C-alpha cells in the first residue's frame, strides 16, 4: 500500500510539473466542447435552388415565389437556360434545378396536366432525397391551389384520408446540441484517458527511466495501478468540467441521476485506460504508441455512433460496435442525460464494459514485463 502511495505521488508530480501537458489536458477539451456542438447540425435546410423558367407565365412566377418563400429553399438563380443552371450546380452554387418548360401554364389549364423537371445534386444522397421531398410537397401545395381556382371541391373528404401526427419525444425542439454535447464529452474523456495512459509508460521506456523501476521491488500490478489511477482521476475531473459546461452553456441538465453517469464513467475509464496500457506494453517508442492509439481511437470514435447512426452500418460494422467501449458510453450518456434512463435500464451496458475493463487490464498486467 505504501509503495502504491509513493508511486502515485511520483506520477501526480510528473503530471503537474509539465504545464504544457496540463494546459492541453484541460483547455483543449473545454474549447472543443464549447465550439464543436455549435457546428454539429445536419438538418437539411437552406437548399440552394436554381429555377429555369422557360414559360414566363403567371403560374411559373407564382410557383417560383412559393418556393423562394419556403424556409427550406434559397432561390439563387432565376434564368431561362438549363445549361446555365447546371453550371451553377457544378460550381456548387446551387443544389437543385427546377425546370419549368414552355407552355407549362397552357398545358396545365388546357390539357389538364403539365410536366416539371427537377435535377438534384446527389453527391450527398440524404440531402438530395430530402430536398426532392420538400420540393415535391411545395409543388403539390401549388397544384392544390391551382385546382381550387378551377374547380369546386366537395365539403367532406371525398376519399379516405389518413391523418399523420408526429411527436418528438425526449428532445421536442429537435435541438442538435442536446444530441451532440453528451457524445463529444465522451470522446474528450476517452481521448485524454487512452492517449495519456498509452504515452506515459512508453515515455519511460523511450527515455530509459523504466530501468530504475524495473530494478526496484515494485510489483507489476502496483506499477500498473500507479500509472492508472492518476489518469482515472483526471478523466473524472474532465467529465465533471464537461458536465458543468454543458449545464452552463447549453442548459443540459441530466434527466437521469448523476450517480448513474459517474458510476458508468468510473467503470468505463477503467476499460479505456486498460486499452491505453495494453498499447503501451506492445510498443517501444512514443511515436508507435501514438500511431496505434490514434488508429484504434479513430475507428472506435467514428464507428461509435456519435456522428452516424449505427443502425445504418453494414452488419460487420454493427458486430464490431458490440466490442467498442465508446459505443456503450455514448449510448449511456444519451440515455441517461436525455431520456432519464435509470441504472436498471443500462445494466447490460454496465456489465459489458466491466467485462472489457477486467479483460484489458488483466491482459496489460500479464503482458508487462519487468525485464528488458
Amino acid at each position, binding site marked *: 500500500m505504501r509503495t502504491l502511495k509513493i508511486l502515485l505521488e511520483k506520477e501526480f508530480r510528473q503530471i503537474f510539473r509539465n504545464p504544457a501537458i496540463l494546459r492541453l489536458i484541460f483547455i*483543449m477539451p473545454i474549447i472543443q466542447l464549447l465550439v464543436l456542438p455549435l457546428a454539429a447540425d445536419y438538418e437539411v435546410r437552406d437548399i440552394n435552388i436554381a429555377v429555369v423558367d422557360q414559360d414566363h407565365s403567371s403560374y411559373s412566377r407564382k410557383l417560383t415565389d412559393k418556393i423562394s418563400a419556403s424556409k427550406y429553399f434559397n432561390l439563387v438563380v432565376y434564368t431561362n437556360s438549363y445549361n446555365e443552371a447546371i453550371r451553377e450546380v457544378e460550381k456548387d452554387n446551387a443544389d437543385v434545378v427546377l425546370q419549368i418548360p414552355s407552355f407549362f401554364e397552357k398545358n396545365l389549364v388546357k390539357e389538364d396536366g403539365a410536366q416539371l423537371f427537377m435535377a438534384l445534386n446527389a453527391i450527398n444522397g440524404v440531402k438530395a432525397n430530402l430536398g426532392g421531398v420538400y420540393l415535391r410537397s411545395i409543388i403539390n401545395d401549388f397544384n392544390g391551389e391551382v385546382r381550387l381556382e378551377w374547380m369546386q371541391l366537395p365539403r367532406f373528404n371525398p376519399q379516405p384520408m389518413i391523418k399523420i401526427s408526429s411527436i418528438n419525444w425526449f428532445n421536442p425542439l429537435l435541438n442538435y446540441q442536446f444530441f451532440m454535447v453528451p457524445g463529444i464529452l465522451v470522446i474528450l474523456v476517452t481521448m485524454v484517458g487512452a492517449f495519456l495512459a498509452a504515452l506515459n509508460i512508453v515515455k519511460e521506456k523511450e527515455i530509459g527511466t523504466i530501468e530504475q523501476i524495473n530494478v526496484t521491488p515494485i510489483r507489476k500490478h502496483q506499477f500498473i495501478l500507479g500509472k492508472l489511477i492518476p489518469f482515472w482521476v483526471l478523466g473524472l475531473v474532465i467529465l465533471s468540467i464537461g458536465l458543468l459546461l454543458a449545464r452552463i452553456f447549453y442548459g443540459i441538465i441530466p434527466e437521469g441521476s448523476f450517480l448513474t453517469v459517474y458510476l458508468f464513467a468510473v467503470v468505463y475509464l477503467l476499460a479505456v485506460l486498460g486499452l491505453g496500457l495494453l498499447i503501451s506494453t506492445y510498443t517501444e517508442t512514443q511515436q508507435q504508441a501514438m500511431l496505434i492509439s490514434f488508429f484504434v481511437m479513430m475507428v472506435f470514435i467514428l464507428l461509435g455512433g456519435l*456522428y452516424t447512426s449505427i443502425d445504418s452500418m453494414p452488419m460487420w460494422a454493427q458486430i464490431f460496435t458490440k466490442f467498442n467501449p465508446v459505443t456503450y458510453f455514448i449510448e449511456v450518456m444519451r440515455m441517461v442525460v436525455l431520456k432519464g434512463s435509470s441504472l436498471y435500464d443500462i445494466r447490460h451496458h454496465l456489465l459489458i464494459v466491466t467485462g472489457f475493463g477486467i479483460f484489458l487490464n488483466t491482459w496489460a498486467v500479464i503482458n508487462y514485463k519487468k525485464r528488458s
Partner: protein
Amino acid sequence: MKQFLYFIRKEFYHLLRDRRTLFILFGMPVMQIIIFGFALTNEVKNSRIAILDNSKDEATTTIIHQLEASRYFDIVENLNSYSELEPTFQEGVIRMAVVFPEQFQSSLLHTNAAPIQLIADATDPNVANTLTSYASAIIMDYQNSMRETKAFPYAINTELRMLYNPQLKGSYNFVPGVMAMILMLVGAMMTSISIVRETELGTMEVILVSPIVPIRVILAKMVPYLLLSMVNIVSILLISVYILEVPINGSLTLLLFECLLFTLTALALGLLISSISNSQQVAMLISLMGLFLPTVMFSGFMFPIENMPIPLQLLSNLIPAKWFYYIVKDVMIKGTGLETVWKETLVLVGMLIVLLTISIKKFKVRLE
C-alpha cells in the same frame, strides 16, 4: 545541394529503419478508407421501431407489412398498451413507435378519415426527422392506393433526376471526406514529432552545430514523408475506385496534383506544430486532439457548413480539409476541371506557403 541530399538520406534511414512505424503508416490509411468507406453513411436504414396496434385489422396489418418491407425499418417490438412506450424508449431499443388507434379501418372506411401517430426518439434529431418523413411517405402511398385510380384533373407531374449519384450511395459523399481526413491527420502527425523528437532525444544539437540552414533541415524532413504519402494516395485512390466503387470522373492528373498539394499542406502544418511544441507528447496531443475533431466537423462532409453560425463558417475557412474536400468532390465525382477549382487550389497553395514560412521562422537555432 549535396549537403541537402545527405540530409534527405538521413531522414529516409530514420523512417525506413523503424519497421513497426512504417508498417503502421502504410497499413493505417488503407484500413481506414476501407472501414469508413463502407461503414460510414448518414443514410438512415434498418431502424428499429415498435408497433402499437390497437386496432389489428386489415388496414393496419397492410401498413405494418409495408413498413416492414421497406429497407428503412425493422419492427422489433409489438406493444400492447400506451404505457409500455416510455420504458421501451428508455431501454434504448427503438427509435420510433407507430401507434394505430382503435377501429382504424372502420373509421377510415366510414368517415374517410383516420389518424396515425408517429412517436420518434428525438435524442438524435436527424434520425427522428428522417424516420418520420419516410414513414409518412409509406403511409401516404397506402392511402393513395386505397383511393380510386381516377386521375386528378389539372395535375402537375414532376420528373426527378439525381445528378452525379443516381443510386444515392453514401460513399460518394464520404469517400472524399475520409480522404481529406486521413491525408491530413497522417501527414500532420508524422511530421509533427519529427523535429521535437530530435530536441527531446538530444540529437538536435548535432544538427544545430552543422552548417546546414534551417530551411533545408525542414525541407529534408518533408521529403521522405511526402514520398510515403504519395504511396498512400495511390493506394487510397485504388481502393476508392475498385473496392468502394467511387468513380474518378475528372482528370486523374489534376486529382493527383491536388492530393499532393494537400499532403504538402498537411506536412507543413505538422512541421509548424513540431517547431512550437517542447515535447513529443505535446506535439502529439496538439496534432491529434487539435486536428481530429475540427477536421471531421469543419470540412463539411459530416455537417453542412451553411448550417453553422457565421463565426464558425468563417473559422471553417481556416481548415485546409474543407478546401480539399470541395476539390475532390468536384474533380472526382462531378468531373469538372481546373476552371471550377482554381480558387480552392490557390487557397491551399497560400496556406502551404504561410505554414512553411512560419515554421521556418519559428525554428529555433539555439538550444535553451
